[in-house]
């Protein structure tokens, strides 16, 4: 495989968890609920997907279990922020801590391990990575991840539900006056966001065939940055995800050259995020009702 193709393939693979998480995040944020939760959703999804696959021996059951795990965490966030009007940032941070704590607790409980689950059935079993497409199709979650944001874009801009999501995120009172249930739209959006982000986590654990404590490793925050970078638009967020993944690929490739201290190479994606935030989207306007009741 040529260098360019290898770069592209790696970028796409790295992007998949970001794309899933950003797809979920865009939905929730556009409905007015802040998505600081993506990291926790991913971790929970990774763990429950592993668990599903472990007990069934079938990775697709793992995928479903991952979705279920994400839905549950999403609903907890939704109940806290919508029903009980908890501060969304705070609830998000709590969800993240909760996901860390619960996955650790049950990892210990079920597998008597503080780090890793046993190996479970996953997706990337084959050997050939000679061709870009074949390599990417190995894991069915990769093509799914690549279409996640386009599907969300369609949902958002073409369907009644999407119109309501956008209305509710901009001006909930206006939506309420025409009989749209703000709470219901948000419940659905946040639950979906949990499920989608959890798929990103499921990708991580099923691709690795095991769960590792803390394996989401900050990817949820990068996905959130991608959403902001993409100005809350699904397609632009997708581009931002690819951009961040490319930065990471670049980081990996640059490290191999060993030209600069690895600490500085490690900074690249984060510094790029800040630069992007400052340069490109400094004044990006979030959905008007984001973070409000």
């Amino acid at each position, binding site marked *: 495989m040529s260098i360019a193709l*290898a770069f592209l393939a790696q970028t796409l693979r790295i992007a998949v968890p970001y794309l899933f998480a950003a797809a979920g995040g865009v939905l929730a944020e556009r409905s007015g609920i802040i998505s600081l939760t993506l990291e926790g959703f991913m971790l929970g999804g990774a763990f429950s997907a592993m668990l599903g696959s472990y007990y069934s021996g079938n990775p697709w059951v793992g995928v479903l279990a991952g979705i279920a795990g994400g839905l549950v965490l999403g609903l907890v966030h939704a109940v806290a922020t919508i029903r009980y009007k908890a501060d969304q940032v705070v609830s998000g941070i709590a969800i993240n801590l909760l996901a860390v704590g619960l996955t650790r607790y049950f990892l210990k409980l079920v597998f008597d391990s*503080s780090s*890793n689950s046993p190996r479970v059935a996953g997706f990337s*079993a084959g050997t050939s990575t000679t061709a870009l497409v074949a390599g990417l199709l190995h894991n069915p979650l990769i093509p799914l991840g690549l279409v996640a944001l386009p599907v969300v874009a369609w949902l958002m801009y073409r369907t009644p539900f999407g119109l309501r999501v956008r209305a509710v995120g901009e001006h909930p009172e206006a939506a309420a006056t025409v009989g749209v249930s703000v709470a219901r739209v948000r419940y659905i959006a946040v639950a979906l966001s949990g499920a989608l982000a959890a798929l990103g986590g499921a990708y991580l654990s099923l691709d*690795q065939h*095991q769960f590792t*404590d803390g394996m989401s490793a900050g990817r949820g925050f990068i996905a959130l940055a991608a959403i902001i970078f993409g100005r809350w638009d699904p397609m632009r967020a997708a581009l931002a995800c690819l951009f961040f993944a490319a930065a990471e690929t670049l980081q990996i490739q640059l490290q191999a050259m060993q030209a600069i201290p690895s600490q500085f190479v490690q900074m690249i994606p984060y510094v790029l995020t800040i630069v992007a935030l400052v340069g490109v989207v400094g004044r990006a306007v979030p959905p008007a009702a984001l973070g409000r009741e």
Partner: protein
Amino acid sequence: HPAPPVPAASGNGLDIGIVFDVGGRGDKSFNDGAYRGGERAEHELGARVHFIEPGEGSDREAGLRLLAAEHMKLVIGVGFIFTDDLTALANEYPNTEFAGVDYALKLDSAGNVVPPPPNLAALKFREEQGSFLVGALAALVGKSKKLGFVGGMDIPLIHKFEAGYRAGVNYVCPDCTVIAQYAGVTPEAFRNPGRGKELALSQYQSGVNVIFHASGSTGLGVFEAARQTGTLAIGVDADQYSEAPGHVLTSMVKGVDAVVFDQIKKVRDGTFHGGVQEYGLAENGVGYIYDAHNRALIPDSVHARVEAIRAGIIAGRIAVPSTR
């Protein structure tokens, strides 16, 4: 005195305390090695072993202290991170024996080693020697001028693995290059298998056929990549063959289990003594796996060559660097 999460030592039993490093049980390498050593001592020596997994920061010292206060016969800290806490506690509890796996020796201003307290055994592994051997092995088997290394957190302890590995590669193949990459600069770097896999895939794609990892759980991603691309990886600390059967060329094993068992046995036999104890190839403290599982992957000629190098190192004919 601290409340006992650990039942008090009975006084006549062989009560042993082991405190794990971050990663804890289930890391499939280092801590698990210590755990196995402890378990074996329970079966074979009738020891009662109490394990503690601290969090970060002051919890490490607290864990050690808890065990010392409960009159364990021997308290073992697993990981260089325990060095200072062990030193302080050994001074404070002169009647308790202590042991530190990967204990980091201090140098005084003149550059001489400061000896640890007499009741503290500083257990040091010569990872660079084992790494040297797997480096040579990798270069001989690899059929490529490029060899790979994936480290976890970018810190001196891991540099030791890298340095030995490089030297080993270049010893048998002076014009080979080693691509060395690290997963990060925080402790998270030891538990990011997703990153490990991508690092490995990029190395394999650039023509590397064998990768040696020293990266904790991150390395599990390296094995995944080896499986997926049909290439080879080298495990670390413990025999990691089962992580990717057929794709684990060998593992650079650190005999943490044997050494832990050994120290417990010495305490039982009354032969325990403090001081620096180095475990290199000569002491069988480090080595590489060559058994029924991976024999097929390693030609006899290569095995013979590596064994010769091993002898050379033990005899002091081959010098192995421990820093980059």
